[in-house]
């Protein structure tokens, strides 16, 4: 409670007490740009850790027997991999990093609504992450997967599980504080004269995401508190030997964790909507339907959780309802994809790294979405639930979707962050390696799942050896793909080509200031951007001779 009230005291910042220069990135800075970059770099460090864990998993799976590490360590590794990647990499980066950096610009403000709360939200993350990872070295980490289903989570070693719960609670708190901040900033801190329907699309995505965060994260927190009671105080909420009900945990858990997928993906949708128009030199197609589809995804996202539980003994009517509700999420999502394609159609597309990663995202996410609609069908899901098919689907959504967008966004906004361009050749190499490695790693896993390989196993039927080895090679490529990227961001920060203030000739407000921006974001008054996507020449002035008949049709003539 008191934390929520804290910002009341911190209105004027004494600049001299805050470190300047690079040191401010290690300080309790309340500048939203500093906090955004803190989120980004911190998240990326955890991504490297999570990636190393993934590498350990793929090494283990290169052979059908459990020979690389002890079986209980394998379960710790897969639990940490899931938790780190979700709670310390994707959620903080797509929300915290880009949200904090961009949202105040987009609403024409000089900072977030609650700057202190913002810094608190960030500084919860590193201790929580270190706590989580240190549990591996101190007592052994949790072994029950990132889902922590009881009774497994009650019967595995308690210390690791309790540390896991603590750190997820901290990260959930950070996420809620961030969500409150975004909602208040977008709704209450808009520059006078700026209408909601003139906001860049990322604001809408973050508004929808934050609504999901605020509504669903507390349920996870409450559930994990109950779970910790089961472990520490020997209550029986989810312990069947004491009369508890394990399926109730699954309902409560997925009430958060399904929306969590949208918490990871909706901001990515928003970021892509910012990147595509700039590099295609065209307005974002169908702004209004994009907004409505985001809100439709938010609404539907809250009522589809039980599709993770089709084999848990749910009654038939529930299966039917959740099938239909889940499948209908494909409609608003489909709208967004068709709108992006229409945005590209007839553009002047620069095929740079940001664009390539965005298009890689579209390809991967379409595949993940198609398998998602299939998974929503109860009879289909009964066969492939908890198999590598689900692993593949999920990674196509969160890696092929969100992580590709994170990279696209880094290529797009790096000049804004640093004032220097990233090396385009290294960027394309990074894209090629990532795209090939990713598809090589996760594409074949669809087949594995269909043919009988369950997820979260350290050993498997020898008939799957070859495909698993292909998958591991893909993982290796993905690991290698990080190297040119790392070299690129570090080297370009010092020796990159000077970007100028607005290298992409973009129209959204963050580009209408210097790069990197001053502490107060703009010298003088914030610009009023009524058409963030006002690219392009009117259709009348367009050279019709160069356009095909399809162009004319899609322009509505």
């Amino acid at each position, binding site marked *: 409670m008191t934390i929520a009230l804290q910002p009341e005291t911190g209105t004027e910042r004494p600049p001299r007490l805050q470190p300047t220069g690079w040191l401010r990135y290690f300080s309790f800075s309340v500048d939203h740009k500093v906090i955004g970059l803190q989120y980004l770099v911190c998240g990326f460090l955890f991504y490297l850790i999570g990636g190393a864990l993934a590498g350990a998993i793929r090494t283990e799976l290169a052979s059908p027997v459990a020979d690389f590490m002890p079986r209980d360590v394998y379960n710790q590794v897969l639990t940490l991999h899931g938790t780190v990647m979700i709670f310390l990499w994707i959620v903080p980066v797509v929300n915290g990093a880009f949200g904090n950096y961009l949202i105040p610009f987009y609403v024409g403000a000089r900072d977030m609504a609650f700057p202190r709360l913002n810094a608190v939200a960030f500084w919860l993350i590193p201790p929580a992450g270190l706590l989580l990872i240190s549990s591996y070295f101190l007592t052994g980490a949790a072994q029950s997967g990132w889902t922590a289903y009881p009774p497994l989570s009650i019967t595995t070693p308690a210390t690791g599980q309790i540390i896991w719960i603590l750190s997820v609670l901290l990260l959930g708190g950070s996420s809620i504080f961030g969500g409150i901040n975004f909602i208040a900033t977008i709704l209450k801190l808009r520059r006078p004269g700026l209408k909601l329907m003139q906001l860049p699309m990322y604001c809408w995505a973050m508004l929808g995401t934050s609504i999901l965060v605020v509504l669903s994260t507390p349920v996870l927190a409450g559930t994990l508190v109950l779970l910790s009671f089961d472990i520490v105080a020997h209550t029986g909420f989810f312990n069947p030997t004491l009369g508890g009900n394990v399926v109730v945990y699954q309902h409560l858990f997925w009430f958060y964790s399904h929306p969590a997928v949208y918490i990871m993906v909706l901001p990515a949708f928003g970021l892509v909507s910012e990147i595509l128009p700039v590099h295609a030199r065209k307005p974002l197609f169908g702004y209004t339907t994009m907004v409505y589809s985001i809100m439709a995804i938010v609404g539907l996202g809250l009522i589809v959780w039980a599709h993770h539980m089709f084999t848990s003994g749910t009654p038939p009517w529930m299966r039917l309802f959740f099938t239909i509700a889940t499948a209908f999420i494909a409609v608003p999502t489909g709208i967004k994809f068709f709108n992006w394609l229409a945005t*590209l159609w007839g553009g002047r597309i620069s095929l740079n790294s940001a664009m390539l990663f965005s298009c890689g995202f579209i390809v991967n996410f379409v595949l993940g979405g198609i398998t998602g609609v299939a998974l929503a069908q109860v*009879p289909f899901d009964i066969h492939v639930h*908890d198999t590598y098919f689900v692993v593949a689907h999920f990674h196509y959504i969160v890696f092929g979707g969100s992580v590709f967008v994170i990279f696209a966004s880094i290529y797009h906004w790096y000049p804004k962050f640093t004032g220097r361009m990233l090396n385009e050749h290294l960027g394309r190499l990074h894209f090629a390696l990532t795209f090939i490695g990713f598809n090589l790693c996760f594409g074949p896993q669809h087949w594995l799942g269909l043919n009988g390989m369950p997820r979260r196993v350290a050993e498997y039927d020898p008939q799957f050896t070859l495909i698993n080895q292909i998958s591991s090679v893909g993982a290796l490529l993905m690991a290698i793909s990080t190297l040119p990227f790392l070299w690129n961001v570090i080297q370009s920060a010092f020796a990159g080509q000077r970007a100028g203030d607005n290298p992409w000739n973009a129209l959204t407000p963050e580009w209408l200031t210097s790069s990197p921006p001053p502490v107060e974001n703009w010298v003088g008054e914030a610009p009023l951007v009524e058409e963030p996507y006002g690219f392009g020449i009117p259709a009348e002035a367009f050279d019709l001779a160069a356009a095909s008949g399809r162009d004319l049709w899609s322009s509505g003539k």
Partner: protein
Amino acid sequence: MLLVLGGMWVGQNINLLPVDASVNAPIYDELFQVLFTIGTVLFVGIVGLLVFSLIRFRRRSDQIGDGIAIEGNLPLEIFWTAVPAVVVLFVGLYSYDIYDRMGGMVPLAHDHMDGAHEERVWGGISSGSVQAGEIGNALPIDVTAMQFAFLFHYPDGDIISGELHVPAGRPITLRMEAKDVIHAFWVPEFRLKQDVIPGQPTQLSFTPTRPGRYPIVCAELCGPYHGGMRSTVVVEEQDAWDAWFSSNAKTDAANT
């Protein structure tokens, strides 16, 4: 059009699934073909459109201007809202039909279990052939899942076995309960999976068709040896199964 035909060819001719060995497996494969066809058409269509746009509308070196300023097109947007909605509705209804044919909507058969099992069944799948008329014929088997094995108990002959032996063509009803943590009973060749939950007995009914040995896989993370928690279902012709059954049945139990 070409795309649709190509998609249908892919759906018909590329088989990604293991052999089918139960009554509901071919029904499942039918659904898979439809989903695979629709998925292929959509995926190839969208990716094709994307790649075409990237090539056709890429910025050439002499172009410095912007693209055409199209902010949106309401009829077009309504069109691509409506089409996925129709497709999704079709897929939903179709899979409902498939689920119905697999027997998913049949009420669970707990009323018909004998006296020892009057305990509540919490959920599960009454698969295809176990219709009301045939239920008397169904072979009841108790499944106990524990870290890290399945145990099969045949109440009729009081047999306890580590392998599941079932006769082809006869409906089987598994009544499953876990001793410790959640497990899942999965036979890929049957296309069936059901969680085995401690404290909440579940049920799984199916009719095997194709004799052979198929793996039973635990599909829910249950501890360090989760990956090793496997067993075998042996589907045998009726005669072979009878022989197995009588050689293993405890004599007194079989006589009474």
